[in-house]
Each structure stands twice: as structure tokens, then as C-alpha cells.
């Protein structure tokens, strides 16, 4: 899931300075679970825009705005979209990227995408994967040090862990301590053996099958 957080309303309004008529798009998938762009948040955003003098031509919460087929189905033939000067999107950048492909309107993001989240409950998520393209969690008990170590160390901890907490954020567990504890429960072998090589940053920008 892509975790998103609302932008400051002032930033969105600044972006709409020359747009009187606005259409609002929400997301029924990730942004709904993040409580940032579902039905409720989209309706509230419409009211906020009206209060600030905008004319809202309509709104739609798309099943998955990041799917170009869905975006095209729901937006490209919409009169309300056609009448608007700008489309405000309560979704992540992947959603806006899809919408950009199917309509020619000024697009204004209302959310900041923050990370790929593992959800504990609605509104509560953690970054456990940074989609690095070179996954090594098979050697670290399913716990990703590239994502969860502040320094992305792949071979083991730095010297700053105090009682299993990270030196950068003492409220945060040292991920290597977690990996170590997990290994005791599973294979009982401590740190991964051997030296993990440098990560590759050479990952594809598109997948076509």
C-alpha cells in the first residue's frame, strides 16, 4: 500500500490560484485505508474548496486511480471533468501519473506520498519495504535492513545501537537487533553469514510483459 499524508491546504490553494472550477478525485484503495483520500476525505475536501470560493464541478472516488484503465473509464468522458479548470487529486503520485495519461487538465496533488506501507490497522502503517529492486530479506528473516536501518547497512549494525534501539531515533528499534532476535527463533544463527555485497540501484523504470 502507498501511504499518503495530506498536504497543507494552503499549498493546494496556492496551486489553484488561476483555477476557478475544480474537479476532485479520491482513491478507494490505499488513500482510503490511510484516511487521506477516501469518500469521507474527498467529500470534506469538496466542502473546503467551496468555502474558499472554488466552484466544484464534481467529484469521484476511483477504485484504483493508479490503474490507467480505471482512470480513463471514470474521468476521460466525464462532463464535470471537462468543465473544470483543474483536477485536485487525493491519491499518491502513481494515481496522478495514471490520470495525467488519460486527461489533459491541470493536476493538483492534495496528498504527499510518504512510503510503501505495511498496515497494522486503518490509519496506522509502517515502512517495512522501500521497493529497492534488489531484495535481500531472504537472508534477514523477512526483516528489511535496507529500509529499516537508518543507514541502510546490509551487513549488520553500526556501533550506535543502545539496548536494541537506533541511535538516530531512540524510540525506534535497531533493525539489526530485530533481525538477530528473529534468527534466534527461526534458524538460530545470528547475523547472516558471509558478506552482503553492495546494492544495485540499477532498477527498471517500467515493466512490460
Amino acid at each position, binding site marked *: 500500500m502507498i501511504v499518503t499524508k495530506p498536504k497543507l491546504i494552503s499549498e493546494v490553494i496556492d496551486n489553484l490560484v488561476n483555477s476557478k472550477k475544480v474537479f476532485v478525485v479520491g482513491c478507494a484503495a490505499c488513500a482510503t485505508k490511510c484516511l487521506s483520500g477516501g469518500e469521507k476525505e474527498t467529500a470534506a475536501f469538496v466542502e473546503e474548496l467551496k468555502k474558499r470560493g472554488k466552484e466544484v464541478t464534481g467529484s469521484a472516488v476511483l477504485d484504483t486511480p493508479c490503474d490507467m484503465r480505471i482512470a480513463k473509464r471514470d474521468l476521460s468522458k466525464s462532463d464535470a471533468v471537462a468543465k473544470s479548470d483543474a483536477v485536485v487529486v487525493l491519491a499518491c503520485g502513481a494515481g496522478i501519473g495514471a490520470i495525467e495519461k488519460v486527461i489533459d487538465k491541470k493536476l493538483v496533488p492534495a496528498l504527499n506520498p510518504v512510503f510503501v506501507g505495511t498496515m497494522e490497522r486503518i490509519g496506522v502503517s509502517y515502512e517495512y519495504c522501500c521497493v529497492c529492486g534488489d531484495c535481500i530479506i531472504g537472508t534477514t528473516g523477512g526483516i528489511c535492513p535496507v529500509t529499516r536501518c537508518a*543507514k541502510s*547497512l546490509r551487513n*549488520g549494525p*553500526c556501533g*550506535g545501537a543502545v539496548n*536494541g534501539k537506533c541511535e538516530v531515533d531512540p524510540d525506534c528499534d535497531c533493525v539489526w537487533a530485530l533481525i538477530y532476535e528473529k534468527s534466534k527463533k527461526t534458524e538460530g544463527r545470528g547475523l547472516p553469514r558471509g558478506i552482503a555485497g*553492495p546494492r544495485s540501484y540499477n532498477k527498471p523504470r517500467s515493466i512490460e510483459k
Partner: protein
Amino acid sequence: MKLCGRLRCGEFIITAELYPPKGTDISALMKKAGLIGPLVHGINVTDNQRASMRLSAMAVCRLLKEKGYEPILQMTCRDRNRIALQSDLLSAYVLGIENVLILSGDHPKVGENKDAKPVYDLDPVQLLGVAKTLESGFDMSGAKLNGAPSFCLGAVVNPTASPIEMQIEMMAKKALAGAQFFQTQAIFDVRQFKDFLRQVKHIPAKVLPGVILLKSPKFVKFLSALPGVNIPPEIVSRIENAKDPLQEGISICAEAITELKKIADGVHVMAIGMEEYIPEILSRVK
């Protein structure tokens, strides 16, 4: 004699640490270097420590070298990707800097530029391996070098971190990757350190435990709050109850070195801004 030669002979090694200035005025730094340079076997120069921007460690190492001192270049993985790190390793070598201490580096979030990009393209284990690769006449991409460097490589370990088993495994990996010597975070509890040495006997590298000059009760408080620093209560009360805390700090340091001399391969003295007292500390070592 060069540091690597001394390490090989098994001599008791004394190293100290200097911090490059924030700005271009190197006069205070060079004055301190003049005081400690003749007394120690190597001077570490920190690499934008605490993630605060300073004069580069490489420039300062070269200045020390020109004065005839033995610099130890600290190189962190924080600010440079693998291209820049390899290039800097070659550059250090051609400037006459052979001793390189490799470490991950304090995270930007604990420094002055909290929004800076933390690079960490390589980790310290990998960077040690890369330095060895360069020594073999090739770079990371496999391209042949026209002239290869030769280094005396060091790394860090924290004998007071927990869980300690992981620190020991990391130390073994760093030694396997190429570290010939280790410097440690500040050691106050010599008994605990002795226990640590026993656990790392199997690792073929020299260990230089860190000692730190406690100059005031305020400094003790500051230090205690830092990651990876454990100061025993009796040491804290010695500084707090001393009429002259700085003199007491010097005594504590000298006593620690005297004890460590019996068990360790050397010491690494960190005076954090009070380097002019290092000669006094060393003169009091029995």
C-alpha cells in the same frame, strides 16, 4: 615509523583525534597538531563528525603529513557514493595518506543538516572490501587501475553496545573484509573491555580502545546522552565531586591508559576540543 609497521611489530600504539575546523582558519588545529603530533603514533582526522559540515579530513591529513605527522583519514559512508569513495581512496593514497579508518558515519538527522540525503551507498564492510579491491589493481567495476594504492585499513567497534554478540560478528566481518586495526568508542570500564577482548581473541586485528577526556560535569551529562556511551556511576561521581574536574578527568584518562596498557594493543585518545591536555595525560601514564 609508519603506523602499519608499528602495528606489525606489536608496539603499544597511541593514537589521538583532531577535528577539522568549521571554516578555513587552520591555525588552532595546527597548533594542537604540533603539541600532540610528536607524542602519538597516529592522528585521526574526523570526517564531518556529528554530520556537521567542516573542512575535509583529506585536506587536514595532507597538512599533517607535510608537518611529518602520521595521519589516519576517517572516511564515512554517509556523504559519498561508490564512485566518489573509490576516487577519494585513490586521492588519499597519492597525497601520501595510507591509514584509512572506515566507518558508517553519524546520520544526517543527528547533525546540522537534517534534510541532507543520507547516502550510505556502501556500508563499512563493503567499503573495506572495495579498498582491498583497489589495492589489487582494479576498481569495483572490474576496470584495471593504472597504478594501485596500498593502505593500512582500520574500522570501529563498540564494545559497550548491546547486544554485544552482533558487534563481535560485525567486527569479524570487518576484519575479514580487510580491517587491520580497530578503534573503539570510549571505554571507562576496563574490566568490561577485558571481557570483550577475550570474546574477540579469534579476530586477527589489533584493538585500540578509546579513552575520552571528561573535562566537566556538564560534558559528562552531554556524553552520557550520546549513543553507545556508558559511563560508570563511580566515574561520574568522581568528576561531579572534584574541586578541579578537568584535572580529575586527566587523572581518570591516565589511569585508564595505565590499565589498558596491560591488556590492549594500544589506545585511542579523544580529548574533544581539549587536545592541548593530551601531553599531560600521556605524561601521567605509568
